[in-house]
Each structure stands twice: as C-alpha cells, then as structure tokens.
C-alpha cells in the first residue's frame, strides 16, 4: 500500500478552495504529498511545528489575525494536543479545522499505530468535538468547506478524519 498522490492532491485542492492558505503541520507518512504541495505553493504558508499542541496556539493566533487556516496532523498528534484543545480552543471558543490522519484503524498492519487509532473517535466524542470521516475524493472538497463553516459558526474545533480509504492507493 502506498500513499495516494492523486487523492492528496484532491484534499489539497479542497483546502485551497475553502480559502485556506495558512497551514500548520507536523509531518507524517500519510501527509507527505499534502505537505509537499503546500511547501511548493507560493500562495500557501506552511508552519511545521515541533509538537502538534503548538499548532493549536498557532491556529488561535491566525484566527485572531483573521487568516483562514487549518491544522494537519496524525491522530497521535491530536492526542498530544488535547490540553491545548481543551484549555485554549474550547475554553476561549476558538474555531479551528483539524485534518487528522486516522492511522491505526481498520486495515492497519502496524501494531504501534493501533491504540491511537482505536481511541481517536472515542476521544473526539469525549471532547464533544464535531467530526466526520473522509473516505471519498469526490466528497472531500465539500467536507472541508462544510467543516470549516461549522468551526466558524460554532466557534469550536472541528475534525476531519482522513481514512485509509482516501489516503492509500
């Protein structure tokens, strides 16, 4: 199985069509092509963080600045960001769009990803964060636009889980 270059491009186009030109990310295998597209695109600013929780702060700063933005991270990075999500984004009502690579779920051959994969959805539910699964490249553009719209109207983080269906060929 390899990471889908075509579907990464579809996701990237969806991000840009939603008017999002500022991304913060921590590299991970499924996000490689997405991040390469961002790096090579003069219209987009990509901030690579040392740990994903930083991106919660950066997204809050970008929101205050009025800059549409999104976070790209692996689900383990989401799990590492929870205090920032709780005690900055939820506490202060800061909207943000999180695109999360859903490693470690159905079809996962690597044992080290599995606990994070299994726990991602329950943790999202525990935090009452709205989320949706992204499986179909024909739907991803709409899903990104609508997730961003909900984040801005609800003043909450909203997550899209990038599944194996869309991320691997």
């Amino acid at each position: 199985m390899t990471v889908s270059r075509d579907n990464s491009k579809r996701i990237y186009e969806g991000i840009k069509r939603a008017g999002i030109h500022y991304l913060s990310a921590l590299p991970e295998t499924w996000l490689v092509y997405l991040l390469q597209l961002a790096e090579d695109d003069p219209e987009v600013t990509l901030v690579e963080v040392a740990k994903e929780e930083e991106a919660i702060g950066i997204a809050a700063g970008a929101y205050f600045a009025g800059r549409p933005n999104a976070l790209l991270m692996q689900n383990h990075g989401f799990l590492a960001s929870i205090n920032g999500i709780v005690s900055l984004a939820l506490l202060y009502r800061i909207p943000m769009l999180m695109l999360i690579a859903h490693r470690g779920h159905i079809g996962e051959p690597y044992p080290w990803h599995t606990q994070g994969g299994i726990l991602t959805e329950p943790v999202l539910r525990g935090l009452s964060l709205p989320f949706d699964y992204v499986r179909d490249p024909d739907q991803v553009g709409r899903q990104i636009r609508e997730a961003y719209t909900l984040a801005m109207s609800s003043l909450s983080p909203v997550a899209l889980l990038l599944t194996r269906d869309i991320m691997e060929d």
Partner: protein
Amino acid sequence: MKRAECIEALYPELEDRLVVTIMGATAQELYDLGHRENFFYLQHAMGLASSIGLGLAMNLPDEKVAVLDGDGSVLMNMGGLATLARYRPPNLTHIIFDNGSLLSTGGFDSHTTSGITDLAAVARGAGCPDVHLAQTLYEFVEAAAESFENDVMSTIVAKVEAVGPDHYGMDFKLPENAIRFQRFVQERVRPRGGETASVQADDLRHHPA
C-alpha cells in the same frame, strides 16, 4: 527585580502592540495596570502563549506582537522555541519572566532555579536570533527598547523575584476576552484592506439572514 516593575515599565509601550500573556500572576499584573482591548490573557494551556504570538505575528506583518511568557510555561513548550526560531517573525518580541518558580501553582521550584536550566542559552541553542538576558530593571528596559525597535524576532529572559499579586480576578469572562481581542484586531487591520480584512465578510456571506 520584580516582574510587576518590568510590566509597569513596559506598559506604555504595549499600547500599540498585540499582547499575549500567560496565566496567573503575569496576566493579573498586566490587567491591574489597566486592561486594553489589545491584550489577550491565556489563563491556561501553559506553553501556548508564544505559539499564539507566532500565529499572530506571521499573519499580521504590519503589527507588532509582544508575548509575556514565564519559565514554567516555556519549560512546557521548549519545542516551541525551535519553531519560533525557524519562522522568526521580525515583528515578535518574546519576553520570558524567569522567577525559577511555579509561582501561580504553589511556588515550587522550576527547573531554572539556581541556574540549573539556562533559558537564554536554551533560546540561543534553539536558534532564536536575538536573545537578551536581563538581571536588573535597567537591563530589562534597555533590552525591551532595543527589541521593540529592531527588525528581528527578539527574546528577552528577565530574571525576576518569585512574587506575585495578592489577588486574582478580571471583570470579563475568558471567551469574552477572546471575542473582544479578535474584534479589536479585525477592526484595526480592516482599514488597511488585504486578505485579513475580507474574512469577516466571507463569514457573513455564508450566514443566512
């Protein structure tokens, strides 16, 4: 020197800057001098004040941003110093009040007590391009004046006493601070036009009447 003296000396210079503070004593000491709409107090999520400052400064290159940080918070996000160093927005001044103590949460020694961890050295090692160490109020004022003027991201580590206010409280709710701060920034940048100005209008267009 006391942190409250440093913040008081800084206060007139903060009028025209976007200011992000950490929790507890630092937030309270700034607030007690008089709240302004350009102040955002991060009362939790320790470590992320500098990350908020980075997101603000990168996206608002015409604004000046000041972050009032602390040793306990920086120790929780030392990787953030490396991210700041990598992107180094020249309009950002990062002030770290180092009292060697987790003052707002019981006064326990932090890792910087007795010089065990040298945050100025950590910042330099992380690659922050302009790092100042201030031991006295005079040095602090000098470092701040230079940092506010120069065209490079600056970091000031100010060694202060582990003392704070005898009271805590603000006359607004936390989300209210965020909403008012965001509105202040938007109203300030809107007349200049450009990308940031269009965001609110876009939001409204999505909104049915």
